[in-house]
């Protein structure tokens, strides 16, 4: 069992709390850098997809897990990022003073996709300032449905249901084909996003976001500008998810509004909850879960009686069951379970199950004046 002996404030501010972290994450990085050379194309693609979903998960986690704002329509930002990237790097954008639309290179279109998504985040964030809890959830839900409809109807830009082709990524003259280079690109973006988020969370803005989650009134009394913090959270969250969407556009190669429906929003939410609300590890764990589930089910189906396995509703059923199961029995998510397991081994044989048990909580109405 490790005892942390703190001798200066620096240790609390640092990202790596003790040397153990440095070793384990370095090893993880090494594995991630080497593994694509050992696997074949399909698995590399799967890992890339994992990174993309994890990036989107981090985006939602910042908003829902850390700022406490419920967003039931995050796929909208995912889609906005994806379509922006596709349009800017494909047909380009026609500016009023130009004869022909300019096609943006990836280095420009990628951040712009994030910026557009962030602007959309602000667009929903500002009216959302007045909304609490359930109303916010419903508003974001409505927003997502409207955006989905826009994707399918604004045919001049998005090609509606006929789909939009996405160009490959070009760095100067070098074309980034599928496979290895794209894998490293996504991994790089994921690491950058995680680092930026961790930095944000250990600085005043991050603390302000968590303060908004736990008690808006006292946060205000401490000088936290609610409007600014919530809007910032929305913007950053939407921007990050937009970046994930941009990468997703290139991964798929072909966009249609069906990829950005309420179903995808639900997937993101399940990711965040099952992974563990309130931790960035949770975003990654959740991403692994969301991607592994369909695969796992496919394998599991072989062991089921034929009638059960053939049902089309089996996957959403298991999905829903696991979601409900986690919320009832494991509210801290996979990351929470991971912590408990770690604690078990650290404290062996002194581990007590009740360490994480909290007292009964009663619901107090938030509504009354």
């Amino acid at each position, binding site marked *: 069992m490790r005892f942390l002996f703190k001798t200066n404030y620096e240790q609390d501010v640092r990202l790596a709390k003790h040397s153990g972290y440095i070793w384990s994450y370095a090893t993880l990085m090494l594995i991630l850098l080497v593994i694509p050379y050992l696997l074949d194309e399909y698995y590399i693609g799967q890992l890339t997809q994992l990174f993309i979903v994890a990036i989107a998960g981090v985006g939602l986690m910042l908003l829902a897990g850390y700022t406490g704002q419920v967003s039931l329509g995050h796929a909208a930002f995912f889609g906005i990022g994806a379509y922006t990237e596709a349009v800017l790097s494909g047909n380009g954008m026609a500016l009023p003073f130009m004869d022909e639309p300019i096609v943006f290179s990836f280095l420009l279109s990628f951040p712009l996709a994030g910026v557009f998504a962030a602007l959309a985040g602000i667009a929903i964030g500002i009216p959302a300032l007045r909304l609490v809890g359930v109303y916010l959830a419903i508003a974001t839900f409505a927003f997502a449905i409207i955006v989905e409809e826009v994707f399918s109807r604004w045919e001049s830009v998005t090609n509606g249901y006929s789909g939009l082709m996405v160009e490959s990524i070009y760095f100067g003259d070098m074309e980034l084909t599928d496979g290895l280079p794209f894998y490293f690109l996504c991994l790089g973006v994921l690491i950058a996003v995680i680092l930026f988020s961790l930095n944000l969370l250990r600085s005043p803005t991050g603390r302000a976001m968590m303060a908004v989650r*736990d008690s808006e009134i006292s*946060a205000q009394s401490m*000088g936290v500008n609610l409007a600014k913090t919530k809007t910032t959270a929305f913007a950053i969250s939407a921007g990050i998810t937009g970046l994930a969407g941009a990468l997703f556009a290139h991964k798929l190669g072909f966009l249609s509004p069906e990829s950005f429906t309420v179903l995808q929003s639900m997937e993101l939410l399940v990711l965040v909850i099952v992974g563990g609300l309130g931790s960035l590890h949770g975003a990654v764990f959740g991403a692994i879960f969301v991607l592994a589930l369909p695969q796992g089910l496919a394998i599991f189906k072989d062991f089921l009686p034929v009638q059960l396995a053939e049902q089309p509703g089996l996957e959403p059923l298991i999905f829903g069951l696991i979601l409900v199961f986690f919320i009832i029995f494991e509210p801290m998510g996979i990351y929470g379970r991971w912590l408990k397991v770690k604690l078990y081994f650290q404290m062996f044989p002194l581990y007590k199950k009740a360490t994480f048990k909290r007292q009964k909580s009663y619901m107090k109405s938030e509504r009354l004046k």
Partner: protein
Amino acid sequence: MTLFQAENLAINFGGVKAVDGVNFDIKKGECFTIIGPNGAGKTTIFNLISRIYDSTEGTMTFDGKDITNSAPHDIAGMGIARTFQNIELFEHASVLQNLLVGRHCHSKTSLLSEMLFLPSVRRAELAHREKVEEIIDFLDLQHYRDSLIMNLPYGVRKVVELGRALCTEPKLILLDEPSSGLNVEETKDMSFWIEDIKRDLGITVLMVEHDMGLVSEVSDRVLVLNYGRMLAYGTPQEVQSDPEVIKAYLGG
């Protein structure tokens, strides 16, 4: 020197005048207490000063500035801090993190520099930490530093609430029933701290209290409220011997 002045302060809730025609001023360095029966409007006045509620009449001046219409999040920056009657701490965070949020009104780092965690941000974090540690020493919270609020007993939470308000380096601190729920020993500690806040930290104190012992011990002047209106206004001795006050509140 007058630090805070409320003139003709009033607020209506529907048809109920929760606060009606209240005038008082607070001198720099003193401890001013508001007492009165429950529902008299004491916490409402606090909420008016913190700008959580908008007053329907009257003005408030703090340190020469009119704060009647300021935004709630600007109040901390101006130098007013408060504690809450029902403890509004951040349950899922540690004591240290709660106290660090108290420093928020003094943080000047931009979003971009924070995301990159530039050396300036690091320096600012360490400076905030030093200030917070001073308060932790002042309130003897050392061994609760990393505990989550939801694991702490009520008495400790009250102290953390006080600490968080002190971290904002206020000129005026609003204490809403600081001794409620505390036993005799903890109340004694609280009275010592209030004295220290006044003397050593030079912070002016505005308090709402029910414990008359604590009130007579630490207050310089007292305002008595009843049904939102002023009943008496003066030193603790004057107020405690006022027949109106005795009839309405003190009993006997």
